[in-house]
């Protein structure tokens, strides 16, 4: 729920409760006051009727009943109550108040009953309800209007800044620019955000420098190792030393690959690949396939390409890595003479290869170095790089295994 709707929502319920309570109170007070007045009036009327009788005049009013009786009448109490009387003209029953009192006039006990109507009491309550309803409607409508204008004026800088924050990345060259505001809380928030962004940027730059420096620091000694080992290879060597040397060379290659892979992942996480353009995945697939054709052939793999033209807006460099990682994964893990199917269409890229089930939990497939080392040949980063590239492009990469077939699919 948006903040403004939330405020309006509470505002509405608060008004409803306040108006409801005050409305009821007004209604009850008024009714009490009015019935008190009516009682006084009826008591006065009874007294006047008694006086008329006392004077010896006959009293015959439609809403006055006079009953003569004996002494027992005097024991009856005063009664003030409401009752219903049928109005034969209007053909409805209407509410009346009546007042009964016993009086002794000229030594004779009388019971006198006087009645009067509510005098439009219904109308009072209706009027009260109407007035309160219109107050409620006005409060809600005006409240919403006020909120709307507040949102236009007071919340505007907040919303603008929110939008800028959304578009801000620590990897971009621009500083975070926030609109000024005169609301203290927003000012404080702006300061915190600017500070946070600056700190994020500093840390990002430091990290970037660190990864690059680490790369430089590791790659240079690796170069020395590699060239020196190759130089040693030029000498006449015994079989035993050749074997030792080979192990050292393999380890150097692995180290250099892991280092490159980790650097690539670090850069992917920092979103450092901003060279996006329209890339034809069809071309990338065909080129990589062409390059690897002899490798597939040599392993006796039957490859089937079902490729439609598909362009994606992404980094060309990353697309090369994505495709070559997936193909080389299929190449490495398909047994001899297996079938590999590559399917590319408008919605998805699918690469399937026959093979034995995974020897480790499926959840570890895309994690770094997550696989058990047995039978695992890669540097442990290939598929996490695939995953990261897909995440970066907001694509969904999935894996499943059925009917002896591993299936990787990427939905664009």
């Amino acid at each position: 729920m948006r903040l403004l709707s939330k405020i309006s929502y509470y505002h509405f319920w608060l008004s409803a409760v306040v108006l409801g309570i005050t409305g009821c109170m007004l209604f009850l007070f008024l009714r009490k006051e009015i019935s008190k007045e009516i009682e006084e009036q009826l008591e006065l009327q009874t007294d006047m009727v008694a006086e008329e009788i006392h004077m010896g005049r006959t009293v015959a009013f439609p809403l006055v009943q006079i009953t003569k009786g004996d002494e027992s009448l005097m024991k009856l109490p005063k009664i003030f109550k409401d009752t219903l009387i049928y109005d034969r003209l209007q053909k409805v029953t209407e509410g009346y108040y009546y007042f009964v009192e016993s009086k002794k006039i000229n030594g004779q006990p009388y019971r006198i009953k006087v009645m009067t109507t509510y005098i439009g009491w219904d109308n009072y309550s209706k009027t009260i309800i109407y007035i309160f309803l219109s107050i409620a409607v006005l409060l809600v409508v005006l409240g919403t209007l006020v909120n709307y204008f507040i949102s236009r004026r007071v919340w505007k800088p907040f919303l603008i800044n929110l939008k800028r924050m959304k578009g801000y990345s620590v990897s971009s060259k621009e500083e975070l620019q926030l609109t000024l505001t005169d609301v203290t809380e927003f000012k404080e928030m702006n300061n915190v955000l600017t500070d946070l962004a600056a700190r994020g940027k500093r840390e990002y730059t430091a990290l970037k420098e660190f990864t690059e420096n680490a790369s430089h620091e590791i790659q240079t000694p690796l170069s020395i190792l590699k060239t020196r080992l190759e130089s040693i290879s030029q000498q006449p060597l015994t079989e035993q030393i050749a074997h030792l040397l080979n192990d050292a060379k393999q380890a150097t290659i692995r180290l250099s690959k892991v280092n490159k892979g980790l650097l690539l992942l670090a850069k992917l996480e920092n979103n450092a690949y901003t060279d996006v353009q329209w890339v034809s995945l069809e071309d990338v697939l065909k080129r990589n396939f062409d390059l690897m054709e002899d490798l597939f052939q040599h392993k006796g793999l039957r490859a089937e390409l079902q490729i439609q033209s598909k362009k994606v807006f992404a980094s060309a460099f990353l697309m090369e890595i994505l495709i070559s990682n997936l193909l080389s994964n299929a190449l490495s893990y398909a047994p001899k003479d297996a079938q590999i199917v590559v399917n590319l269409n408008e919605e998805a890229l699918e690469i399937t290869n026959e093979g034995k089930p995974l020897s480790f939990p499926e959840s570890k497939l895309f994690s770094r170095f997550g696989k058990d080392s047995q039978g695992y040949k890669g540097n442990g980063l290939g598929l996490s790089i695939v995953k990261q590239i897909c995440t970066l492009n907001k694509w969904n990469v999935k894996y499943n295994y059925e009917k002896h077939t591993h299936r990787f699919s990427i939905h664009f």
Partner: protein
Amino acid sequence: MKMLFVEDEPILLEEMESYFSSHDCICEQAITFGQAEQKLKNYMYDVVVLDITLPDGSGIDLIEGIRKNHMETGILILSAKDSLQDKLTGLNLGADDYLTKPFYLEELNARVNAIYRRKTLKGAEQITFDDFTVHPSSKSFFFKDSEISLTRKEYDMLIYFVINKNRVVSKASIVEHLWGDHFDQSDNFDTVYVHMKNLRKKLCNISGKDYIKTVYGMGYKFTH
């Protein structure tokens, strides 16, 4: 071929110089930005191998100067940073190629030769050994006057061998040259062996001479 190596790591300089000297190149070195700038001002080189990270500046800044003075000079960037941005900047400024450390000297040699052929010899050069001739511009291969058909991988491998003749070339270096470095190496050694065997057979059938020797556990050596 006259070459300048700009690199701040003495061991790498030594390795590069000793390897290229053995291939009849005149090699000079610069270990700082200032030294490189001085040498580039005073002399002309066929190919400059340029490290980006130097103690007193960035190799990238040397490219424009080289391009201004000598259009023909080939430039190969040798960088420890596998940075796409550096690569694009370098190539846009006029560098001819980009190689990331750690690298194989054989690969560097192959790339430097390719640049040299393209820039200085304008692609007109032929590589010959005995009665064989390779025409890199048309990617064709002749024995005396008759053309020999090679698959693309065999052709790439042949050039790699010929350029790096008399040197034990490791299988890993061949894999990287033929397929790039995205692949798992050891898987492809068998395929390297198959290509090598086919190439060796073709050369042997025509000339009766075995050019490629297997060096146990290490790789192959091309001699003539």
